[in-house]
């Protein structure tokens, strides 16, 4: 457990830090014109967010340790299920594949989950702090995307060692690494999964322009997502037509899809088809969030001081 160096207020997830504000001010009025300064601007946002994230290491590492407990119980539960069924394979998944799948969905969720994003946007709308994006030369969704990437990078870097250890301990559940094209498709699906997660939650957050209270809607969506994304069990186990319906929806890309790519369960034309569908969903939610934002701004009345 490490004590934080300072007792500065914890970020509410969306406040640009003073560091960032000071530096963008110092960039001068020409900053909006050059693409290089735009990159520099978003790099500063990225850096400040990364520093903020690393300030509370004790909390972070303790949380990471606890994060392994559900994995242990999940492995034990599924072992009991396979022993109880007396079968080698359930819905095409052997016991080893099932555990590998459930471990891999954690990697998928590491990319696609966006804690606090939609709630944060809704709060900015409700409290009126959103207006700073209209005054400052920063696009809200662009800013949030940089902020989120920084947090994800910090999260992935700091949890690399515990995760590497976990996968090393659980290596018996895997048949080694898949071939290079499969790995490439796996990483691509993770990055696209991150984008779907981001733009999907941003869309939910911008609903706050119309309904001031969206946290309840958010809870319902997130609870449901836990199941329909395949985080709890592979969608193949569900009775038809549910399995097919859920594979048609965008939520499977947040947990199920990357995991089954890694396990080599989707190959060739089917893989290409689903990747194209995933790109479609990214574009769909990107357009949706931007459209909702633009229409929302017309209704926005900047409450608060």
């Amino acid at each position, binding site marked *: 457990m490490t004590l934080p160096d300072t*007792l500065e*207020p914890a970020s509410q997830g969306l406040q640009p830090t003073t560091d960032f504000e000071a530096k963008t001010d110092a960039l001068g009025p020409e900053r909006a014109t050059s693409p290089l300064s735009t990159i520099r601007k978003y790099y500063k946002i990225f850096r400040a967010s990364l520093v903020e994230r690393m300030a*509370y290491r004790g*909390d972070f590492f303790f949380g990471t340790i606890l994060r392994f407990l559900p994995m242990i*119980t999940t492995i034990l539960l599924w072992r009991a*299920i396979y022993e109880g069924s007396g079968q080698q394979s359930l*819905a095409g998944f052997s016991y080893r594949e099932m555990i590998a799948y459930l471990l891999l969905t954690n990697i998928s969720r590491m990319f696609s989950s966006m804690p606090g994003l939609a709630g944060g946007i809704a709060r900015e709308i409700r409290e009126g702090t959103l207006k700073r994006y209209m005054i400052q030369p920063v696009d809200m969704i662009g800013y949030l995307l940089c902020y989120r990437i920084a947090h994800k990078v910090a999260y992935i870097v700091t949890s690399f060692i515990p995760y590497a250890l976990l996968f090393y301990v659980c290596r018996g559940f895997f048949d080694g690494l898949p071939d290079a094209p499969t790995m490439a498709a796996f990483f691509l699906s993770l990055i696209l999964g991150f984008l779907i997660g981001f733009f999907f939650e941003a869309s939910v957050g911008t609903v706050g322009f119309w309904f001031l209270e969206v946290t*309840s809607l958010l*809870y319902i969506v997130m609870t*449901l997502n836990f199941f329909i994304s395949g985080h709890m069990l592979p969608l193949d186990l569900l009775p038809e037509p549910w399995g097919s319906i859920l594979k048609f929806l965008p939520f499977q890309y947040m947990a199920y899809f990357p995991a089954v790519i890694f396990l080599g369960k989707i190959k060739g034309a089917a893989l290409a088809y689903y990747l194209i569908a995933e790109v479609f969903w990214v574009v769909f939610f990107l357009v949706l969030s931007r459209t909702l934002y633009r229409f929302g701004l017309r209704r926005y009345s900047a409450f608060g001081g």
Partner: protein
Amino acid sequence: MLNAWPTRYLRLYWNLGRYTLNRELSFRGNFLVKISVEVLWLGILVAFYRTVFARTSLIAGWPEDKYFFFVGCFFALSGLIEALFLENCNDFAELVRTGDLDFLLLRPIDEQFLISCRKVDWGSMPNVLMGAAVMGASLYSMGWQFDPWLILIFLVMFACGTAIAYSFMLALTALTVWMVRNQSLMEMWWLFSSLARYPKEIFNGTWAEPIGVFFTFVLPILLVVNVPATTMVQALDPKMVAFTLVATLGVVWVSRRFFQYALRSYRSASS
């Protein structure tokens, strides 16, 4: 003076409960949405286990009807913990970080009571009823014979389970004093309580058994749902019941001491 002590706290708790209920009822829409989320969550749990039991008839010696009693018991118990303590403990991090904890420490009431029992989250209370409904349905499908003694023992074990779970939550809360930004207490609790979510019979085999023994006898989180559920639908084990009673007293005492120790390390920032 000493006699007045419990009545004073009971009266205080009664008033705190009434106050939070009034608050909750002034946001009725929110209350209804909260309940629908919980119904949804229970529905997901049922869907999950129905899917699993479509492929197997037994999980770690638990057939489907008995297993659903376990699920109902877990749901009711965690609903009770959420209603009574989770929100309070979750707020603690913010009190420490801002230094507002000072205002609570200055009041002439036991700190642990004030910090961990200040608010009742009535929105989680229906979970207890929903869990009870699942348990009832499970007993019905088992063709259970009514036995008042067994129900009494079950209720006592359920209360012990709640007290043990509360003590662990209190200990996790106390860690906040040193870690300052423990904003994810809710998540930490969710992760830690995952140990109590399944029958303890799943902890078998070379590496899992020591883990099961550790979390039964050293940090007895596994007793929380397992003992009441096993007592009711599997077999009454008097030794385990007695051990749970002793363990409850021990864990409550240790967590209280740990919490008080943590409060002594509180640095009262920003005041």
